[in-house]
């Protein structure tokens, strides 16, 4: 049995060791790679020990932290977080292995590797935490290393991009903090104990008004993270200015927290508010899918193109989750993983292009297949995976999401509850499907302009234009293999998510039915006043 505390601790220890190593990357990079490899091994052990028939949390560790305030270091893994943990450790390992991770700034590599490992600890902790305090601490732990990664190793406008990233992300997470504090007090008022325990929080029904406000606070944080249009403006800046490694982790893992947050927190905590606002968010997701695709189409900067394609692809994830059906949610989770592999890989490929040619403008490339055939082949697989070609990873997720959306109405009727008012789920699915065609257009156009066409620019003929080196081949080999396996044999992944998603949707439906029957929630039934804390005594001055 694996101890999940170690999973979080190993990258942190690695970061400390890296900081203690002498300057330069000669010793710090091997230490970093070993730490990332150990983490990867641990997540594989978690995968081995995972029992796919259980929908609840597994391998739980519950260590009191500040017991009097109900703060615990409570970690656990279920079908929703299992694969995301594996994705995190894999992508961090590949990033540290890749020679281009720091972009062109090949300085201060020790700090970069340490920041990556702290970031990894924050990401793993956020995926595994089932105590809201611990979750918030880990969530914020991701912010600072990413800020440094963009700000120190980024491009020309890195200051602007870094501060924009921090302000956007923090605006969302601070509102979420306010909601967490409110819920913390509410849980105390209802249950009589101070606790951050996930299961307890998920069993509390709030009064309608506060429920909606808290849901909006959580949702805003997650919408910024995903990001959903119109809160996406930080993303192109952050992606373009970040060094390759930063972009890869940002796209492959960090953005997933938005969707993960919806699944883990927003839906179980606030079922009624989620139900009411699901149509709006679903339409925003579709708007993002199409807007991202159109924006990607007109970009001349390859990195920006991939960044906007990311906005488009993550719209599918949110759409899948928000139709609130088994198929849609499983498709959303699969799409998260597929996007992590394909878009993460595309950012690495852009990093290679920039490393070789010091430009990212499409018009500067052309005919690169000839000097770089191995790179071309890998790049092609990743482009096609991103475009959703059947047989590769991108197809499975998008297909499940689209078909889940299409049949959303029936699914809900079958479960005996009225569907969320999507208007016409078929219309949503149709519009999103249209974006799949757009994705093929812009991605294939990009590939054609970079790799094919006449080799007429002298810089592109330079004999020094190297094809992939050994480490790069290893990195791309793993990504291409992952894209193929996930596309050809998605069943093992879907099997392991099924039970947890089923538990989630079943619980969601029960809670929704309960909330509809008792709009004020169990607090009033148990005789306590839900709106006032139990400790407020009569006679207290009641200002404000």
């Amino acid at each position, binding site marked *: 049995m694996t101890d999940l505390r170690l999973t979080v601790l190993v990258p942190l220890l690695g970061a400390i060791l890296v900081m203690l190593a002498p300057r330069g990357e000669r010793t710090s990079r091997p230490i970093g790679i070993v730490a990332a490899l150990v983490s990867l091994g641990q997540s594989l052990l978690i995968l081995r020990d995972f029992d796919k028939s259980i929908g609840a949390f597994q391998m739980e560790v519950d260590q009191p932290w500040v017991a009097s305030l109900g703060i615990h270091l409570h970690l656990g893994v279920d079908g929703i977080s299992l694969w995301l943990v594996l994705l995190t450790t894999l992508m961090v390992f590949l990033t540290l292995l890749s020679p281009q991770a720091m972009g062109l700034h090949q300085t201060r590599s020790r700090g970069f590797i340490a920041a990556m490992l702290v970031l990894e600890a924050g990401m793993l902790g956020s995926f595994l935490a089932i105590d809201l305090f611990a979750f918030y601490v880990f969530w914020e732990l991701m912010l600072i290393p990413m800020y440094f990664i963009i700000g120190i190793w980024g491009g020309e406008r890195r*200051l602007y991009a*870094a501060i924009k990233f921090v302000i956007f992300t923090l605006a969302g997470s601070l509102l979420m903090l306010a909601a967490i*504090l409110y819920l913390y007090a509410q849980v105390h008022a209802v249950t009589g104990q101070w606790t951050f325990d996930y299961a307890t929080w998920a069993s509390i029904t709030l009064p309608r008004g506060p429920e909606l406000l808290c849901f909006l606070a959580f949702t805003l944080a997650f919408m910024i993270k995903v990001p959903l249009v119109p809160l996406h403006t930080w993303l192109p800046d952050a992606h373009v200015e970040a060094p390759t490694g930063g972009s890869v982790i940002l796209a492959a893992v960090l953005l997933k927290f938005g969707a993960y947050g919806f699944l883990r927190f927003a839906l179980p905590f606030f079922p009624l508010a989620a139900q009411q606002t699901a149509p709006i968010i679903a339409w925003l997701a579709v708007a993002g899918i199409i807007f991202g695709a159109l924006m990607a189409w007109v970009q001349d900067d390859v990195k920006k193109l991939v960044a906007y394609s990311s906005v488009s692809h993550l719209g599918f994830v949110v759409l899948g989750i928000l139709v609130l059906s088994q198929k849609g949610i499983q498709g959303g989770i699969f799409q998260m993983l597929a996007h992590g592999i394909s878009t993460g890989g595309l950012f690495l490929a852009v990093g290679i292009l920039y490393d070789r040619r010091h430009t990212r403008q499409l018009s500067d490339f052309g005919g690169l297949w000839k000097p770089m055939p191995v790179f071309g082949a890998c790049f092609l697989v990743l482009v096609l995976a991103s475009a959703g070609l059947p047989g590769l990873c991108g197809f499975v997720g998008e297909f499940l999401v689209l078909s889940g959306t299409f049949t959303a109405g029936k699914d809900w009727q079958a479960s005996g509850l009225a569907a969320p008012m999507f208007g016409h789920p078929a219309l949503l699915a149709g519009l999103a499907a249209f974006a799949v065609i757009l994705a093929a257009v812009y991605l294939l156009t990009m590939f054609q302009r970079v790799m094919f066409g006449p080799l007429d620019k002298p810089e592109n003929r330079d004999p020094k234009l190297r094809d992939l080196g050994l480490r790069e081949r290893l990195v791309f080999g793993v990504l291409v293999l992952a894209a193929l396996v996930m596309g050809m044999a998605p069943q093992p992944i879907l099997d392991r998510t099924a039970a947890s998603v089923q538990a989630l949707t079943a619980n969601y439906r029960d809670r929704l039915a309960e909330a509809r029957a008792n709009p004020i929630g169990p607090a009033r039934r148990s005789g306590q006043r839900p709106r006032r804390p139990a400790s*407020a005594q009569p*006679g207290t*001055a009641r*200002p*404000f």
Partner: protein
Amino acid sequence: MTVDTVQIAALAPLLLISGAGCLALLLDTFKRARGPALWLAQLGCLAAFALVASQWMRATSSQPIWAGMWVVDRMALFLDGVLIGTAFLTLLVAAPFMREHDFAHGEHHALVLFATAGMMTVVHATHLLSLLIGIETMSLAAYLLVASWRRQPAGAEGALKYLLLGAFAAGFLVYGTALVYGTTGGEMSYAGIAARAGQAADNPLFIVGVYFLLTGMLFKIAAVPFHMWAPDAYEAAPTPVTGLMAAGIKVAAVGGLVRLLGTAFANPGLALGHAGWVRVLGGVAFVTMTWGNLAALRQDNVKRMLAYSSIAHAGYLLIGLVALGQRVDGAQPALLVYLAAYAFTTLGVFAVVAWVGRRDDERVLVHEWAGMARTRPAVALVMTVLLLSLAGVPPTGGFFGKFYVFRAAMQSPDLAWLVVAAVLNSLASVYYYLRIVVAMYFSESVRSWQPFRSAGIAIVLVVTVVVVLALGLVPRPVVELAAGGLITGW
């Protein structure tokens, strides 16, 4: 009134600190060497800390002495520990700072100890007169300390402004004391005021007296609109003294307010209209944190920026005081933990500011910090951790303190808006704290970087960063200490 051994034992830490101050002053008069006075002062702090620790073990219940003038309880002892620690760390920074900037005053060390004695009196006071004596002892020493850096051009201006406005504050305190005394039928002890407050509550003069007392205390914690002196005084003072003022005086004044509001004015019948001081303080809290943060956004001078940041922190602390007034669970320990985290963070930050400047080149503009991470990575890292703690980002003590205070306030639905406002305020604060980080890490240095070497400052940095991270990562021991001494049964 007789003086017996029990009373002497209760006062021992205070006597030790003031005695060490007097001896340091004498030593400086007879012997011009700088070393012994400093060592004596530091030794005094360590011995006083040990005494406080031994008193803690015995202080299972509160022990009033001198007819209700003074109390020894765990809240006071907790704050004593923080204040003595503050003084000790200030002395460690002050010695190398004065050597570098070449203004040696032996009385400096004595004044730091006298100020600390005043602060300790404030947190032990259970009588308006002992409160007044404590506040004035602390403030007089602080006026002198601010003015002690004669070479600093703004020194005289800042010190004078501080003195004049401080005198106003003292006037408010004295007048408020007199009005409360007159309207409660001759009561000045907190317990007596609490007992009579119900009858006096309808007397408009009593209400005026309460608000005068509050005004005097709000001056000391630099709450808006009584904050004008803070940026000038902080800028003018020698940097270690700025640290002492930002950390020590705020801790003492908030501690004094906790006791004053928590006991003397805790009577729920004591109301102005239907809301009482709780409502007024809520408004002051909002204005203070918002104004402090907005003004800090515009500062280019690090010391002034930190002055406004300390004003904003006064606002967060006032939220805790309002929660205390709403009688929610855990407001008092939350304030104590917040104060401890804030004090150590602030001391560390000002130690870095003190370390950065050289003689005739104080180096306090943000852009002058450019490139520090290249040449001094360890100090830059420490500064980053401390700034994140001020901003309230986990896993630092600053975050935990904020969380604890907001937890208390959130229990009262009437205060939810203040918590939301405070949380949004921290967003604004992150922007200016990160400006320093940006300069240190993301900008290339424009001038050569040769800070002075000092073991004292290095020790302070290590101690503060360890305390700040420990408060964030393993807050349990401090939470238990702070919860040990509730002054009321709420």
